[in-house]
């Protein structure tokens, strides 16, 4: 499970968030499997309201697991077009299906091409995942 990092997405390498341009400039955002491995079972999810303008790097939500709270940081500038109300009611959806039903927000990005350059993508994903998995193993979080 922890190695499940789909190659068709862009990743915030520090925060372990994924971004997926699905329909023109609409970018769906979620947390990746390694981020969930680090946090554990989510107890609560808070996300900003649709219609909120955001800049890349802004906090657009907060996740809580095992008494740790951690921000969801916008990987793209634009306007929040939608949020996953089902995940707000039942955060376990995010743990069960982080790349599908467990998505968090969708952003209508104003300049996705520029924002995407700041994220890990394409051929860079493999080496990044290898390094992260090795780090998790070293720290005892993966067998």
């Amino acid at each position, binding site marked *: 499970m922890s190695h499940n990092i789909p190659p068709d997405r862009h990743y915030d390498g*520090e*925060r372990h968030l994924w971004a997926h341009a699905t329909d023109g400039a609409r970018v769906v955002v979620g947390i990746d499997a390694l981020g969930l491995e*680090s*946090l*554990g*079972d989510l*107890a*609560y*999810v*808070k996300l900003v309201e649709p219609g909120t303008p955001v800049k890349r790097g*802004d*906090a657009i939500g*907060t996740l*809580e*697991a*095992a*008494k*740790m*709270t*951690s*921000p969801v*940081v916008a990987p793209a500038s634009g306007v929040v077009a939608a949020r996953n*109300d089902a995940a*707000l*009611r*039942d*955060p*376990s959806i995010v*743990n069960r299906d982080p790349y599908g039903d467990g998505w968090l927000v969708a952003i209508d990005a104003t300049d996705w091409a520029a924002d995407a350059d700041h994220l890990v993508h394409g051929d860079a994903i493999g080496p990044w995942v290898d390094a992260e998995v090795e*780090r*998790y193993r070293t*720290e*005892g*979080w993966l067998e």
Partner: protein
Amino acid sequence: MIDRGAPVWRRIDDDRVTAAAGLAVDETLARGAERMPTLRLYTYASHCALVGRFQAVEHEVDVSACVRRGVAINRRPTGGGAILMGADQLGVALACAAADGDRPVHARDAMRRFSTGVVAGLAALGVDASFRGKNDVAVGGRKVAGLGLCRPARGGLLFHASILVDLDVPLMLDVLRTPFAAITAREVALVERRITTVRRERGDAVSVNAVRDAIAAGFADAFGVRLEPGAMDAAERDAAAAVERERYATDAWVDQRTDVSDGVGHASVRTASGTIAVRLASAGRLAKAVHIDGDFVAHDSAIADLEGRLRWHPLERDALVRTVDAVHAQWGADLSGVPAEALVDAVLAAAESSAPSTYGCFVNPEGVR
């Protein structure tokens, strides 16, 4: 011997801070932690009730009792359950960088790592505590300190610990929402079997200042740093005042709600060694608190440890089995009267019976039938 070449952390001591000001200072220190790691050791003015980041205040706190008894209410930036803080509870706030060199700090590792300062400090006081599960420090299965962590969006990392030097259990039961119909010696005893304090463990009236110095030394030893006494500068004081004014002193912060439903349920399972009765308080698909009772024979501390390990635990069979098996492996014969499979069955049956409720999670949901 003091290592003059060791990295320096600032140490700030505070006492009798208000809830809003205390939380605002911690957040301000976290924002500046990349520049100056700070260990703050402080007490709140007696008393305040602090709920976890996403808890519903009216589910966790008896607001009218708080008003009657002059207990302030506020919301922490860190997760977890409601706590009562005052002159006999030492607050620990470690504000540090969110990265260790060029590597981001791993969330769950951070909780365990930072707890070592608390454990080392308690050991110096003769209290044999250890990190339990994911986020508690316990002595023989009884919780002596709660831990929390927050990674603010604007940088830094904030580790919180609340160390019970002493605890007014009747007051806690009065101001935190519990399903107890009345607070008698029995209810107090129930809580005291699951929580301990530094004074109780030592059998003396050790001062909060002595605990504070021991915890400071524990962090210095555990992290190989030198602590320099300090205070916030003028810019930090201004920033903290703004955070207090704009966040922690506002109803908008304190009265937040989430869409996750709280619930309570109960179930009993008969085994060859007796009946296991489980009462459960849940938040969505997580257990907030599990109370285990019955006519089986088991060590009180083992039951307390088991209940502690099941707090904020997913209500899923495989995960429950792994956790309960691990506790069984630790306690052995002291827990043999509570077969793992039967206990997991009872917890899941209690979850199945769960109905919406407005009860909080700090104490066990005794009395819910």
